[in-house]
């Protein structure tokens, strides 16, 4: 679902991502860990087609990036730190906007279902400004799932979701394994992600320093790994 | 200390164009002041015209170069084109400032006043100066990739504004500048035309030489930055 070879991104002369290779098979859920500034979020934004690779090749859902980015975007679900919704629109209006942007055919029924699913049915007609952080992030979860994406890109989802939202996300990730979707979960809390991820990739200074099946290692070792000491 | 410092590409071109520009400028100056015949109507004041118009035309050439460099940058994303664009606009801006100043002096000499709003050429170049001065404001307030991208886009949009400014000022005001060029070619004696062409060539060579020197400087600066960076984190 993702094929990346030698990805590079630089802010000025500083390389945030420095030659990353990454492959993602259907049904695979990868936890992407690393210290602050290791390049996790930049790599995720690259996979989300928000940041153009400076070097290397990237294919997402079979589409070359950046040339065929728009085709790839139809299948990407992106959950960021920010909910990416307008505070002065209602929950439903936000989802209507995104439903139209993605060309969702059964927009209104789908929105009603999802609002119910994330527990926002009662607040559907309230502006997001009145929501708590956890509620806004649950709305973001609905926004991400609206167009039935095949590749989920999540930036520290458990840090901002409340308990109900986190449960809902975990269920989605389990379903993703079963129906052949894929997910990349950026995190610095490997223990928390361990139960929903199959594979762990650790970045340090923009490079992959570890790529291993999740079951194989003790989370404490991982901590040590990305804070500096060589494996 | 085994590797000898590599020659910065363009060094030789800069030198050649510099020499050529110097020769041409000297020849053109001699021609304009000592050889070319005086103008019947305007007398000596007309001699401002040779360089004034040549600089005006070359400044537009510079902005055209920047526009093309902008297009090429957006296509290839090579820093080289950003360098070319910025250097060309820097020189073009210098030249347009010269056009405004010498045009103002000409206005004083011809009409006895430093500024004539009804002279479309003067007014247009003032607008052009404002357009391209804004380029540097934009550049200084964005970083890295964005700076290059925004600069490229603005150099294209700015170049689109230039003919619009020209035309809008021209339709709005009556044309009172002395008509030296007519549509077909020139209504001046052949001996004047020769020196005008030489002046034009001299200013063009000057532009190319300055551009090459700017580019060599930029490449060296970048090489230096990378060297420092490599020394910092081996």
């Amino acid at each position, binding site marked *: 679902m993702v094929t990346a070879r030698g990805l590079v991104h630089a802010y000025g002369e500083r390389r945030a991502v420095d030659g990353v290779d990454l492959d993602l098979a259907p049904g695979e859920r990868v936890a992407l860990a690393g210290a602050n500034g290791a390049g996790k979020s930049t790599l995720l934004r690259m996979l989300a087609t*928000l940041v153009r690779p400076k070097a290397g090749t990237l294919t997402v859902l079979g589409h070359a990036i950046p040339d065929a980015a728009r085709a790839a975007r139809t299948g*990407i679900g992106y959950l*960021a730190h*920010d909910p990416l*919704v307008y505070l002065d629109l209602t929950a439903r209006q936000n989802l209507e906007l*995104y439903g139209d942007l993605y060309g969702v055919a059964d927009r209104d029924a789908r929105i009603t279902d999802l609002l119910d699913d994330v527990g926002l049915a009662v607040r559907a007609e309230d502006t997001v400004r009145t929501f708590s952080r956890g509620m806004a992030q649950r709305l973001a979860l609905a926004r991400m799932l609206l167009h039935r994406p095949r590749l989920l890109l999540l930036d520290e989802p458990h840090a901002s979701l409340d308990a109900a939202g986190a449960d809902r996300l975990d269920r989605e990730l389990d379903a993703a394994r079963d129906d052949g979707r894929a997910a990349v979960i950026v995190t610095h809390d490997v223990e928390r992600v361990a139960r929903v991820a199959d594979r762990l990739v650790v970045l340090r200074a923009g490079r992959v320093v570890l790529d291993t099946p999740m079951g194989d290692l003790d989370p404490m070792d991982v901590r040590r790994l990305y804070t500096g000491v060589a494996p | 200390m085994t590797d000898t410092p590599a020659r910065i590409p363009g060094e030789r071109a800069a030198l050649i164009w510099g020499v050529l520009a110097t020769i041409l400028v000297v020849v053109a100056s001699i021609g304009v002041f000592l050889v070319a015949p005086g103008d019947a109507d305007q007398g000596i004041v007309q001699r401002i015209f040779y360089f004034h118009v040549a600089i005006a035309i070359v400044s537009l050439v510079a902005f055209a170069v920047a526009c093309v460099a902008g297009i090429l940058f*957006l296509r290839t994303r090579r820093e080289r084109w950003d360098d070319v664009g910025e250097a060309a606009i820097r020189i073009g801006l210098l030249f347009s400032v010269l056009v405004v100043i010498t045009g103002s002096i000409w206005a004083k000499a011809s009409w006895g006043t430093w500024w004539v709003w009804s002279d479309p050429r003067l007014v247009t170049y003032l607008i052009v100066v404002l357009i391209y001065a804004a380029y540097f404001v934009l550049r200084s307030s964005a970083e890295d990739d*964005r700076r290059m*991208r*925004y600069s490229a886009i603005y150099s294209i949009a700015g170049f689109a504004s230039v003919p619009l400014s020209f035309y809008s000022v021209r339709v709005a005001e009556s044309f009172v500048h002395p008509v030296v060029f007519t549509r077909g070619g020139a209504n001046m004696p052949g001996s004047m035309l020769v020196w005008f062409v030489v002046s034009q060539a001299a200013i063009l060579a000057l532009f190319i030489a300055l551009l090459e020197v700017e580019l060599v400087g930029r490449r060296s600066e970048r090489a230096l930055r990378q060297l420092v960076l490599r020394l910092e984190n081996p």
Partner: protein
Amino acid sequence: MRGRQLAALVRKDLRLELRTRETIVAMVLFAIVMLVILEFGLGTRDGDLTRFAGGLMWVTLAFTAVLGVGRSYVAEREQRVLDGLLVAPVPRVVLLGAKAIAILIYMAAVEVVVIPLVGIFFVKGPYWDSIGWIAITALLADVCIALAGTLFSGLALFTRARDLILPVLFLPALVPVVIAGAGATHAVAGGPHDMSEWRGYCLFLAAYAILFALVSVATYDAVFDD
């Protein structure tokens, strides 16, 4: 698909504006204050400003446009929504078109107030019979303002001191629009109509709009492409 996206984006901007009423109200107030300032700045309280009416109108509209255009990505930037739009399969030119349409609507709303006010405040002589021609001029100029404004506000969006950058970028590019708008208004307002002059200026505005539309379409991909 593109039509649906465009309509959704425009609807979103109008909904936000209707809910917050931040932009249009401020623009209208600003324009009225500007007209008053111009009146006193010119210092001819009992004189006749008819000869300057078109100029006063377009100077006011140009500065009001800068104000409105400066607000055009405020919701996206302050509420950090832009990534959501960019990660969706929306052609960048649709984003451009939607923003331009929103600015066009704001400008038209301002002009509904400003154009009659200019007639009341400044014009002695025939004005109301030429209001249709002035409206056409305004509409053409609005297209120019919207296209150039969207492009420049996109450039200023992620710069430092963006509130300062936008007028510096945008106003020089607006000079031709002000010249042509004022010229076209003078051609038909406050005296005998000179329709050939009016047509000339309007053609110029159309050419401006086409040129900036081409530049925007060609470059707008790169505005948001990090």
